[in-house]
């Protein structure tokens, strides 16, 4: 999914499920490398976590609001709040671990 300044409120902040946003730019080789992984994870976690990309050059407002300085930056939002923030390229395993942890803590909350 492509996040933009315009759909950010609706698709990310108001999303009923957690959202992972990868902030990227075309001048950032690590971002390019992570792209196929993000696409793969998006399909795999569909329905449990919304996963997508946001180009910081085309969407400067959001990038500025969240003080995105290094790329790629990964932010996970739950109910509009930041629950995870990571900067720099990650392996697929690392990203998976982060996503699973967030989803597990989500489940816990539901049980409590």
């Amino acid at each position, binding site marked *: 999914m492509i996040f933009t*300044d*315009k759909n950010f409120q609706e698709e990310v902040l108001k999303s009923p499920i957690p959202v992972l946003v990868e902030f990227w*730019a*075309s*001048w*950032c*080789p*690590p*971002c*390019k*490398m*992570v792209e*196929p*992984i993000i696409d793969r994870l998006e399909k795999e976690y569909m329905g449990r976590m919304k996963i997508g990309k946001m180009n*910081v*050059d*085309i*969407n*400067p*407002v959001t990038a500025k609001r969240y003080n995105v300085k290094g790329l790629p930056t990964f932010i996970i939002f739950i109910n509009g709040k930041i629950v995870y923030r990571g900067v*720099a*390229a*990650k*392996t*697929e*395993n*690392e990203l998976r671990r982060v996503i699973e942890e967030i989803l597990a803590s989500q489940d816990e909350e539901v049980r409590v």
Partner: protein
Amino acid sequence: MNTYHNDRLTCWNCPSAILRGNVDFRACGQSMRRFTSMEGGDVVIECERRPELGHFEPTINFSECPQWKPTKYGRLLDNMRVLILGIDGYLGWTLALKLGALGFEVSGVDNFLRRRMVREKGSMSVVPIASMEERIKAAKKYLDIDINFRKIDVLNRDKLADFLKEVKPEVIVHYAEVPSAPYSMVDADHAIFVQKNNVLGTLGLLFLMRDIVPEATLIKLGTMGEYGAPLTGRPLFEGFFPADAVLLWNGREWSLGGEMTPRDPVSFYHVSKVQDTFNVYEACKYWWLRSYDVMQGVIYGVHTDELATDDKLRTRFDVDEWFGTVVNRFVAQAILGIPLTLYGEGEQIRGFIALEDAMECMVRLISSPPEPGQYTVVNQVSGLYKLKTIAKTVAEVGAEFGFDVKIQRIENPRVESEVHPLEVVAENLPERGFRPRVSLEREIRRMFDLLSRKHIVRRLEKVKDTIIPRTWWSGDKRDPKVLGVYSPDEVREEEGGFRGILHMPLDSVFVYRWEDEEK
């Protein structure tokens, strides 16, 4: 409707999109936001080719834009303005005709350095080539191509700046570098000259692009030799590690995704190309320039349809030890009866590509402009071969033409590993619709066919003495000792020896099937 590899690229990729002054890139001071306001902070751009659109969202697909016309190489920008630096060279001239025939507006720059260097070494192009003036006339006469040529040394920034302002290229193909490892190893003067010409020429060009044509794509010729051939067998990725590559140290793990892979150049010439790589990469990062850095395999061959139209349109062909590439020299040696020269073991594995395929690669890259700031490395090879396999193939094809070809092992004047693995990843070109179409044998046949013509054989005889290498990496200047002479059937692949592994996915969905159209 046909699907083209570049259908889904958008204005964000297009060189006609005017970004400077419109897009607020990372605090780079290009923005005039203080005075403006688009509702909701929308990013809008203008189009140089379609000024009537005013300011608009950069979301138009190439498939929706009337300026991107369908061709057999994907969509191409109508009358795209290309500037070829080094247009008089082996590749530059070939590309000029190819692009001209495709409807590009071709401009070119050269200072005829290559002609001078080859002359300096007592050699010449064995395929006769005319003066630039006559070449341009021939291009007009036989192919109806107009070429806007200017004699400029790329190091002369003032002149180059004026020409850039005149031409306003949408893509710049940079072939204006000295392309020879041995030439850079002759002595200090040669090494310094090569590095100065190559590195500083490119560096200056980057500054000019920043100021004059920031939206143009720079297609910069590098070489597979920048990587070297790591003995570990680590794959040669396209410039950067993939995201799943990790650095493991001390029980900890880091992603190497997007980090530049190590380079291990094998001559001072190759070092100049590595330095270029860094300069171009940095410029893209600092100024939102866009570039494809093409790691070209060893190039060979004589044929494109345009070159073959008339003898006056042929591109140069060098066979001397400095400017002749290995397959080209082997064919010359075969015709002259000089045993084909393997250096050392002859087990070196290299990536190769035929001239015609290399030209298609360039068109594919031109048709897929990178995004602002995007620096992408492209491994441009169509096959990996051991040198002794190449020698054997040339000998076999030579036999078809009635030549009795021998192969000799000689002392290796270079410093390089002679027995090594090689694994190459080449995904970026297939993603842009490229498929190798010319087999090694096919092109070698075309080479024999052309080079065994009488007038060329006569020229080959004249430059015979420049073929055997006498430039040693050690600094020596002497004939290498012959270690053994073989007939082609004695040359065999050893059991359990290294073999080149090429990762080149050829099943991309975005392929326009031009073969079907040709039938």
